[in-house]
């Protein structure tokens, strides 16, 4: 009898203790906590259900780190640099030679590089310099930022005048060139505070004069 009397009570208690309001997960609150909830509800005149929900929240989250998580840094996709063989192939193609021996003998190579510093053919760096000078932008150096980089091009490493000016050589008019130069001057003229730079401006001047030359 006792058993039958007490059982429904236990079930009721259990239901009360484990029923979580709305979307809360079901966490069993022990007797101690439940007693405290009852006491506070009585003394402070608070809603038992609210206190129980709060207790549930505390039990569920008290170990979690309260600091806001930093946003996930998306690593830029690693650009694969050209291999030495790929660099050489591009240079050989440009000068219509088969190998380094022929390249060194090539008259047009000697002419085209006559203004360059002495090249070290044993190092990749030398081939990269040639690539920049005659072929185009090296993988990983597109949209470069930092000192000397304008419109994604490092003007000290590349002679890519049109890219630096952000113009299309096929369609640009002399007015477009002038306008692009004027805009860049507003940023890089040495008299402009913070952004002005004598070296950058001198290089831009060379670029402008080159495109503006009446041959």
């Amino acid at each position, binding site marked *: 009898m006792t058993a039958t009397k007490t059982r429904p009570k236990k079930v009721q208690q259990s239901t009360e203790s484990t029923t979580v309001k709305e979307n809360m997960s079901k966490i069993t609150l022990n007797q101690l906590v439940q007693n405290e909830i009852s006491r506070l509800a009585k003394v402070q005149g608070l809603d038992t259900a609210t206190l129980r929900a709060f207790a549930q929240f505390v039990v569920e989250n008290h170990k979690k780190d309260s600091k806001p998580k930093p946003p996930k840094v998306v690593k830029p996709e690693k650009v694969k640099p050209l291999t030495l063989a790929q660099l050489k192939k591009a240079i050989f193609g440009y000068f219509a030679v088969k190998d380094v021996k022929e390249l060194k003998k090539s008259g047009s190579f000697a002419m085209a*590089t006559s203004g360059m510093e002495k090249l070290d053919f044993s190092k990749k760096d030398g081939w990269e310099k040639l690539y920049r000078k005659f072929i185009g932008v090296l993988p990983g150096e597109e949209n470069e930022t930092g000192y000397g980089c304008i419109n994604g091009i490092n003007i000290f490493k590349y002679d890519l005048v049109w890219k630096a000016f952000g113009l299309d050589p096929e369609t640009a008019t002399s007015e477009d060139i002038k306008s692009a130069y004027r805009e860049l001057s507003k940023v890089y003229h040495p008299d402009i505070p913070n952004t002005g730079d004598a070296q950058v401006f001198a290089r831009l001047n060379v670029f402008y004069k080159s495109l503006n030359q009446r041959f």
Partner: protein
Amino acid sequence: MAELYITSQKLVETLKIATQDLIETEQFFDSIQDDEWELTEGKDYKVVNKTSGLREYTSSGAYTIARYLEATQKQTFWQRLTEWITHTREEIRKAFVKKHILDNSSSLVKRNGLFFVSRSDLIAIFKTKSVYLKKMAEHTQTTQYPLIEGEDFQDLVDEGGLYYSLAGIEKLSRSFKECQSKKNRQEWCGDVGEVAKPQVDAIVAEIQNREKRIQSAMDKAKKRDGNTCQVTGQKKNHVNKLKLAAHHLYSQNGYPYLADVENNLLTLVPEVHEQFHQDYLGGTQKPCTIDDFIKFVQDYYPSNTRIIIWLNAQKQVLGNHQPTDQRKPHVLYLPASRVM
């Protein structure tokens, strides 16, 4: 282009055959007349030594022999010959371009470590017209890598206009090659971009050597004259430490090709040298001849009959010369300071 002749020796080397093979082939061709295999004198070959019958072949004659050897020996003689002829023709063509550069680069100058030639010289080198060079330069400017001021071209105010560097000429050469429709013009303009640098290097080396040769001739003339002024008789010794000048009888600027000729030099004390150039002629830049100096000595040092006789003898040796155009001296006679 003139007919290309290949010597028998070169033909043997090119076809990689024995001399005897060529002799037997020639005998075979000559033995049976009017058959499939014919070599016609004048058209296919010329006899360079009538006694031995040694021949030099035209390309048609050489090809006929290669075709015969290929048919009888089943080897790639044709290809070997084609390679040789193509290569030789290319070398001959490049030699013409080099000569043309030599004759049209009197504006050559070195600035900031780069060699430049004037726009007008470049027009001549490319065998083009002013308007077309302009067009090609403008075309180059629309490419990814345009001509860059200071690197590829420069407005040299002191030289009177636009100059192109070797790197700039190479870029222009590519544009010419791309835009020309005629094969021979493509080849010529392409060759300019190939041979200009070695040719300029050779020219510069010659200019520097010439400077050394002039100095050497001056030293020899002074030694010949016993370090003694041939007009006043003053002799250099360790006490007076006289600085003697070697005077060019035909001046360097008017007759540059005689500048390193010892017979064209005479030892003088600086006072007499100065007196002749400044006072008598009116300036060191004015060209002078041996006749001017003979007249000067006769007028101012008439008692020195020995030198007057010597000068007249030298006049016979040196002969009469016409001064070169000082506005456009040949590149080989440019002062070394211009290309150093």
